[in-house]
């Protein structure tokens, strides 16, 4: 029976390939739409869930959350490192992670932070940074710029390419992160001290450059005199800034919900500060785009209904195309149960192959889209399968087979002599 079913399929190769392609496209779109919407939603929530408080300068909550969680947008500004020290001494706090950002390497953002920020991230090579001017780079940065352990990077001021180069303070690569398919892959991590030192040195360089410029413009010794005292004063100021620079944000993991509430209230009173709960902010972001999400879901449902309709129609057309064969077999004396079985096997194979191919295509599309979504800090896990995806595949399979039964039953009521 299987042999005949295969032979019968073999003589309709072209038609069956078209049927499989139609089913694969329909099913793949349905699976993909659902999987992406779920993974993006849960990705946002998971990323935001680890830290319960983020403190930054007053401004946009969304900007602060997106900048610290996904390294997108610009930092709101800076706040004093004293807040980090205060929080480190606070017994209600489990973890405090300072976060600075302001430089880049060929467009890859440089984040000054402690090693705690990379907790849970695996190093593919090397070690975690421990000294100033050491850095750990994301896998994509390593690949894109052919960087390896020991490579040196000359960073530039600003978050985009073309800024003033910090040539005097190159960073040395001591570690390369394993690929995470998140925004971490595109970032360079270094101690906060590196960022502070780079900027203080850069400030001195700038001031000196300004002075040279002023001299060239005929500034008199009386107007601005360089003394040893001044030089000492520059050096002292630079050292202080290196030791206690400012940070763009502080990520806090409190010990309990009470601790979280108290800390939020206390730091929230300070008008210079913005205190946010990243989960809440991202939930608000998601709620703000709730209409878009609903539209996506409605589209998913419409796509699925269309899929069911298209696949049913394709299967029915295929069956009606086979009605001459069925009539022929009936005239010879082949029983309806055998004929049914042959076509159920045939359409079952088509349905099974289409379902598997649709699943494989959806994973390929997920992998291809992963790179794009990773820029938002969300990993599209190709191995992630949701129960509804299995349900969609089961429905695709059933609707590939069910019309066969309906059609053959309908044909069995006719005598077949006139087909």
């Amino acid at each position: 029976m299987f042999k005949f079913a295969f032979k019968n399929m073999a003589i309709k190769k072209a038609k069956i390939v078209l049927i499989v392609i139609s089913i694969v496209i329909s099913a793949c779109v349905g699976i993909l739409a659902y999987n992406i919407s779920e993974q993006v939603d849960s990705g946002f929530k998971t990323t935001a869930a680890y830290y319960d408080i983020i403190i930054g300068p007053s401004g946009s909550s969304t900007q602060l959350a997106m900048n610290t969680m996904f390294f997108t947008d610009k930092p709101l500004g800076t706040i004093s490192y004293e807040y980090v020290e205060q929080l480190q001494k606070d017994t209600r706090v489990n973890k405090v992670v300072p976060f600075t950002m302001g430089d880049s390497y060929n467009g890859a953002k440089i984040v000054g932070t402690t090693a705690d920020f990379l907790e849970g991230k695996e190093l593919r090579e090397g070690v975690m940074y421990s000294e100033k001017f050491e850095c750990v780079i994301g896998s994509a940065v390593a690949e894109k710029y052919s960087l390896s352990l020991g490579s040196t990077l000359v960073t530039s001021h600003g978050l985009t390419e073309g800024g003033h180069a910090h040539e005097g303070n190159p960073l040395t690569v001591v570690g390369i992160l394993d690929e995470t398919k998140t925004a971490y892959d595109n970032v360079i991590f270094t101690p906060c001290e590196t960022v502070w030192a780079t900027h203080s040195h850069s400030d001195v360089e700038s001031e000196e450059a300004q002075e040279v410029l002023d001299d060239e413009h005929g500034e008199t010794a009386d107007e601005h005199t360089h003394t040893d005292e001044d030089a000492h004063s520059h050096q002292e100021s630079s050292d202080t800034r290196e030791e206690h620079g400012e940070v763009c944000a502080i990520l806090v993991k409190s010990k309990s919900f009470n601790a979280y509430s108290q800390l939020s209230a206390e730091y929230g009173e300070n008008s210079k500060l913005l205190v946010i709960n990243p989960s809440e902010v991202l939930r608000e972001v998601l709620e703000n785009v709730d209409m878009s999400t609903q539209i996506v879901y409605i589209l998913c449902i419409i796509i699925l209904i269309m899929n069911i309709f298209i696949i049913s129609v394709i299967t029915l057309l295929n069956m009606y195309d086979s009605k001459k064969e069925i009539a022929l077999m009936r005239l010879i004396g082949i029983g309806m149960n055998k004929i049914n079985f042959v076509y159920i096997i045939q359409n079952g194979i088509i349905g099974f192959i289409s379902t598997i191919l649709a699943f494989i295509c959806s994973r390929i599309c997920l992998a291809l889209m992963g790179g794009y979504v990773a820029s938002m800090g969300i990993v599209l896990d190709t191995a992630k399968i949701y129960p509804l995806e299995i349900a969609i595949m089961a429905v695709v399979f059933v609707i590939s087979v069910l019309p066969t039964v309906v059609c053959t039953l309908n044909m069995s009521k006719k005598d077949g002599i006139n087909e």
Partner: protein
Amino acid sequence: MIKIKNVSKHFANETAIDYSDITFEKGKSYMLLGASGCGKSTLLNMIAGILSPETGTIEIAGEDMTNKSQKEKDKFRIQKIGYIFQDFKLIPEMTVMDNISILRLEKVDISGIDKVLDALGILDKKNKKVKHLSGGEKQRVAIARAIVKKPEIILADEPTGNLNFAIGEAVIKQLMEVSKDKTLIAVTHDERLGKYFDHIIDMNQVTGGRRDV
């Protein structure tokens, strides 16, 4: 032995055919002659259990086929009747062998297929697609499919209808050869082939044509 008693068949166009009683003996060959629409093919289809008469009985080997379920009729047809259809009823895209192998779906023994194809002179066409065969070759494939299962009854509806006389005559000779000791009932318009059959039945006289219902 096949006995047709008081059979009448109604059609969708509100006409009917009434058949006089006829008996077909085992081991004999019958040629059914008659005008189009007089009920020749309908009789074959009723004997084969494809159509059911409104009244009367069709007895085959003492069993009343009209009381049987469609499933039983199908089973009887696949096991005991070899039906050669007017338009061959072959799947053009499949090979000769695949067309005959369809019978295996009902576990029909087709082990003697090479011998049958050889006897019909189409053994070399065994793996050719039916669509690439000539009309005569297609007819022989239809005959091979009908007789490979060694049926007790062979029904042939216009077996030479698509062939010229010479080829048609050759096909009839082969059909006679393979249907020895069986009941052969063949519908044909060509009276010249009558000499090969044991009996010739004028269906115009048997049915008297169609009547309005």
